[in-house]
């Protein structure tokens, strides 16, 4: 089925390619905002310039119209007709597109006109725009203008003038365009400059992040050292990330160390049983033997193998407990009676105790309920009692007491055995610790029972300690968060 694989891969690829860049997004955002601002500014600027220029243009248009009207005077001979002195008309500023005018006596004849046929006549005081030969012309018409020239012997009322005047808007348009180009260029330049600045700034701002990533990338199972750059630690946005990373790393490191220690211990502990088995089988094969010898050898090997299996089971159980403790014990656990658990454990060990002629006694001063898996608690009591029974001389007593007060239960297991040197007491809960290996091996221990007990007690947020008794013996004390049962239950030994 190797053909299937290539089909799977491309499906996963697009996800990978579409990585989102924070800095690119930031830069794009800044530039877009700037572009919008610059465009708005450009529009406002153009409109404002245009308005300014138009109003100046319009006053100029009006002035020129008035000046044109001023050129109208009476003829020197009678009958005093109105004449226009074109010679006094100033030349148009733009020769290619000259100004046009038309002077008319209001309600009378046209006095003078330089107005092309294609240009629509002006109709009002307010300037209007019309096009002639592809050029925009702005034109206005002023009416009721007085004739400046005076003539005394004039019959009838003084005539009024109507002046139309048109001027090309080329210069305005050019200037508006110039202004727009200038503003646009300036805007673009600004945009480019700020774009570069933003890129630089963001790069610089994100540098601690990059260095942080570089540091984080160097962490491996061989190198747990994590030294976040000080700049990153001083960055408000990165500080929580660093704190989270550090706490995660420290937890991982602890867990890793524990795993490695466990593996080392386990490998070490497994070597001896493996060595025994190997030597048994090899010495069996060294020379031909009879069937009975082979049978004996196989039986011995099987025995060794069973011990090996037991050791493995215990180690795995311990590992499971610790992992469960790490992931946090569930609160939806049943409530278990301590007295009942101790009684069950004692029941189970009754045979061993009788075989070793040890008297066991359970004293329940106050029973209590603990939220726990019943099996877990029973394993605690079984291991503690078994430990006590195994190391007690025959004829001695092992006593289990259950007490409770406030939110805490206290269970103690006492024996009258030889005890352990004070210096060794703290190590008694260590994995694979054996106070006296010969004694432990004789009783089939691996040095894991008490480690399992400690892990279990701690998984239930309890405490365990051990103390020497006088004149001899050990006392294990387990304290667990619990709530006491109301009535006192006296249980038989």
């Amino acid at each position, binding site marked *: 089925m190797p053909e299937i694989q290539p089909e799977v891969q491309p499906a996963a690829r697009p996800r990978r390619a579409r990585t989102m860049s924070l800095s690119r997004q930031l830069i794009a955002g800044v530039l877009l905002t700037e572009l919008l601002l610059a465009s708005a500014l450009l529009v406002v600027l153009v409109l404002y310039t245009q308005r300014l220029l138009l109003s100046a243009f319009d006053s100029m248009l009006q002035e020129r119209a008035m000046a044109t009207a001023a050129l109208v005077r009476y003829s020197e001979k009678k009958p005093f007709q109105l004449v226009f002195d074109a010679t006094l008309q100033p030349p148009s500023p733009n020769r290619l597109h000259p100004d046009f005018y038309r002077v008319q006596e209001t309600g009378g004849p046209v006095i003078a006109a330089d107005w092309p046929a294609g240009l629509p006549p002006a109709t009002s005081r307010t300037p209007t725009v019309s096009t002639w030969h592809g050029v925009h012309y702005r034109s206005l018409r002023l009416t009721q203008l007085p004739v400046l020239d005076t003539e005394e012997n004039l019959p009838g009322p003084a005539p009024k003038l109507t002046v139309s005047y048109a001027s090309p808007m080329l210069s305005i348009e050019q200037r508006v365009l110039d202004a727009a180009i200038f503003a646009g260029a300036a805007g673009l330049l600004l945009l480019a400059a700020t774009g570069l600045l933003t890129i630089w700034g963001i790069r610089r701002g994100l540098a601690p992040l990059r260095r942080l990533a570089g540091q984080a990338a160097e962490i491996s199972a061989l190198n747990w050292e994590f030294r976040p750059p000080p700049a990153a630690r001083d960055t408000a946005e990165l500080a929580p990330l660093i704190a989270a990373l550090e706490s995660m790393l420290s937890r991982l490191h602890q867990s890793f160390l524990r795993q490695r220690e466990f593996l080392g211990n386990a490998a*070490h502990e497994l*070597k001896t049983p493996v*060595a*025994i088995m190997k*030597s048994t089988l090899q*010495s069996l094969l*060294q020379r031909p033997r009879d069937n009975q010898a082979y049978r004996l050898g196989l039986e011995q090997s099987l025995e060794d193998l069973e011990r090996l299996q037991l050791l493995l089971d215990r180690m795995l159980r311990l590992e499971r407990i610790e992992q469960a403790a790490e992931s946090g014990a569930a609160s939806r656990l049943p409530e278990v009676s301590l007295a009942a658990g101790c009684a069950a454990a004692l029941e189970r060990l009754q045979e061993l105790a009788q075989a070793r002629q040890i008297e066991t006694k359970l004293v329940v001063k106050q029973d209590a309920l603990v939220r726990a898996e019943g099996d877990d608690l029973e394993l605690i009591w079984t291991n503690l009692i078994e430990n006590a029974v195994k190391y007690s001389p025959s004829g001695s007593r092992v006593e289990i007491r259950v007490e409770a007060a406030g939110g805490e239960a206290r269970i103690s297991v006492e024996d009258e055995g030889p005890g352990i040197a004070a210096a060794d007491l703290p190590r008694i809960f260590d994995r694979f610790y054996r106070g006296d290996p010969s*004694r432990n*091996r004789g009783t089939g221990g691996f040095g894991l029972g008490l480690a399992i007990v400690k892990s279990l007690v701690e998984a239930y947020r309890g405490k365990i300690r051990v103390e020497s008794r006088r004149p001899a013996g050990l006392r294990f004390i387990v304290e667990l968060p619990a709530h006491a049962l109301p009535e006192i239950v006296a249980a038989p030994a």
Partner: protein
Amino acid sequence: MRVLIVEDEPRLAENLARSLRETASYAVDIANDGEAGLEMAQQNPYDLIVLDLMLPKLEGGEVLRQLRSEKVATPVLILTAREDKASVVALLNSGADDYVAKPFDLGEFLARVKALIRRGKGQATPLLTVADLEINTLERRVQRRGVEVVLTPMEYRVLEYLAHRPRVVVSKSELLEHLYDYNWEKFSNVIEVYISGLRRKLDNDHPVKLIHTLRGHGYSLSAEPAAGEQV
């Protein structure tokens, strides 16, 4: 040869002892804890001590240290579950002669035991020669002038012990101590039996006698007659 095994796992100790007895014809004593091991090593002349490190009562390392401080020069082969360089170096420096890491190969263990015993006696090869006598300690075969000589296991053990120290006069009690387990006293008369057996098988057909008896002193293996020898 007599070997002491100090090992707290009874099954392992028995297996090693059985192998040494069966394949090398060594006398083997077993101690199950460090204290017993130290005591036995102090009281008996062993040709090799096999010492486990993790021992009840007294740790193997401490046994070794005490033995060496009392000038007991017997070769010591360490059984260890730790194979890291530092601990091996520390072991060798504190007077161990060699080590095997658990789980070890029984064949390798035997080879190291034999090599250590040989070296302890100043012999570099497993082939011992005295004049025209050849003893192959690996195959436990004996030849004189190229002719195979068939010996009983005990005769071989006496001969091998003598051959490891040619020309040296070895006392009867030394032979007994090295050839038997701790309860050797009850065998005190058998050495003469083995010596006469060896003489018959090795020397009878040859003009040059190799086995010499010095009455009141002991025995030696040599091509030249020893001073004060009684024939």
